[in-house]
């Protein structure tokens, strides 16, 4: 259940040009949170900056919670100044995280991260890895071994402006993921947008497995089932939604919106969906991509 905690900062260090990593002690949040959920931090103890700031949970380890963030304004600048040993006021865990589909151990997973959108994806990759470490209910083989023999490793596509701004490649590899990189200036990996890399990846990777195992869940075709998970700038998520719609692949996207309360009371962080407005803080931040009404689909006068 969501609560407010006074947490000791264990580490708050720069990991890139404008990127920081904060680790704080929060046993209850670490126990209860799932990939895609977020924590809501007070920047300082003063009234300016006034509001809390929401951060995806990046990783957790027993009693520690880690966030990865980019300094983009006054609030995050204040948070970046906080030192190890200080106390930070944390509300969490909040929101609805990513949903790994039932029986999804065998199915393909593609994670797409744009810029600081890598933050929740590292925890998601770890969660998927854990699911796959369990034994297949059908054939009682370890799922990851089966999936890997079919080239079904978790695939991660990371997009960044330049090589310098590329984050978390190592962490994903540690979780056994296959990592592909796109940079806008071509300084590393594919030159272009990560969504272009996704399209390329789908056209070349969508062929059925070369051979089928005895495992029932494989022959039932679940290997052909793919789930796409994405977090990044809105334009990127919108493109992911269009591409996945074209290929008829279910996609989950983690959205961001200016937020005040974080608990569904103020109605500030609304997002237009096919079923009316929903709240990023309470109904999201993770939504099914086909549920969202993207900005280019707004009806005039609506």
């Amino acid at each position: 259940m969501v609560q407010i905690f006074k947490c000791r900062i264990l580490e708050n260090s720069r990991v890139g040009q404008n990127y920081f990593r904060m680790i704080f002690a929060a046993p209850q949040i670490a126990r209860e949170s799932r990939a895609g959920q977020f924590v809501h931090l007070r920047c300082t103890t003063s009234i300016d900056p006034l509001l809390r700031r929401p951060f995806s949970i990046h990783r957790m380890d027993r009693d520690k919670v880690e966030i990865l963030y980019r300094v983009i304004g006054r609030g995050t600048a204040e948070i970046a100044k906080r030192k190890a040993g200080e106390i930070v006021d944390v509300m969490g865990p909040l929101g609805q995280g990513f949903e790994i589909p039932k029986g999804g151990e065998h199915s393909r997973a593609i994670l797409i991260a744009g810029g600081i959108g890598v933050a929740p994806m590292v925890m998601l990759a770890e969660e998927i890895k854990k699911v796959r470490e369990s034994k297949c209910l059908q054939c009682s083989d370890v799922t990851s071994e089966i999936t890997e023999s079919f080239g079904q490793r978790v695939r991660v596509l990371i997009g960044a402006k330049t090589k310098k701004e590329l984050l978390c490649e190592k962490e994903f590899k540690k979780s056994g993921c296959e990592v592909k990189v796109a940079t806008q200036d071509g300084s590393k990996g594919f030159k272009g947008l990560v969504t272009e890399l996704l399209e390329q990846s789908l056209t070349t990777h969508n062929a059925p497995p070369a051979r089928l195992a005895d495992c029932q869940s494989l022959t039932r075709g679940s290997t052909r089932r793919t789930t796409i998970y994405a977090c990044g700038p809105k334009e990127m998520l919108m493109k992911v939604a269009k591409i996945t719609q074209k290929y008829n692949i279910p996609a989950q996207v983690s959205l961001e919106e200016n937020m005040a309360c974080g608990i569904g009371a103020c109605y500030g962080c609304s997002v237009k969906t096919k079923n009316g407005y929903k709240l990023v803080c309470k109904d999201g931040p993770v939504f099914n991509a086909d549920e969202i009404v993207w900005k280019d689909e707004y009806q005039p006068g609506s």
Partner: protein
Amino acid sequence: MKNPVMCASGTFNFGEEYGKFFDLKKLGALVTKTITLKSREGNLPPRIYETPSGMLNSIGLQNPGVEMFLKEKMPFLRKIGIPVIVSVAGETLDEWTALVRELKGVRGISAIELNISCPNMKMRSGRARSTMFSQDADATFEVVRKVRKTTNFPLIVKLSPNVTDITVIAKAAQKGGADAISLINTVLGMAVNLEKRAPVLDAITGGLSGPAIKPIALRMVWEVSNAVKIPLIGMGGIMTARDALEFMLAGASAVAVGTANFINPRVIPQIIEEIKKYLVKNKISNINSLKIGTAPIL
């Protein structure tokens, strides 16, 4: 009311979210999010933006409408066992009366707050468009009088600071039959994004709240307290017990806490505790004896 601290409308939804953080019984009263006759979808995002020591909002009175409110929210509110003040708003006089009629005889409601001052909802009448009821003394008088005739519930009228002279509007509300006045609603404001060369909020303008507006609110409570006889509920940027007590000194009989709930969902019970400590320490037996000039306050 067992204490003078309530939540401000629109910052507390219908209480459920905050019930996870503290026992809602501790509230002096609960003021609901404003409800309208029919459900409202609200404005397009972005709806909020932080400003120095404050925030702008243009939620647009998103609410489920009175029918759903009575069916889905009222049972929870009734169970808490504290005074429930239902905030309502309409665009026309007929809408106001129809809405208030729907609340007739509903168990668990202690009073109705007329939100005639939401910057995101304008009145539709023969008068000039795009103004709030509370920006026009005659319109204020008319709506309060009409509603007064329609219901027996005590009426609290919530005023806007976006006027030349708030005492004129306050007097009109009193004359129309208001039992109390709550003030202030948000201050109209705007934020601009230099990079995009565009307004930040989709609705362009919004209502400013938070500590940034406290001096404006204190000034208006002081002015209105000298102009009307009915009690005042003061609000606008209250973050601490000290802020709340300042409003009492300026002339408020009770206070409402709004934006502070977003930063600290447990702020209201904390303010109540701090006020108690202050009263004990200063040997004040009646909180309403706190008035500017009545006693040396250290």
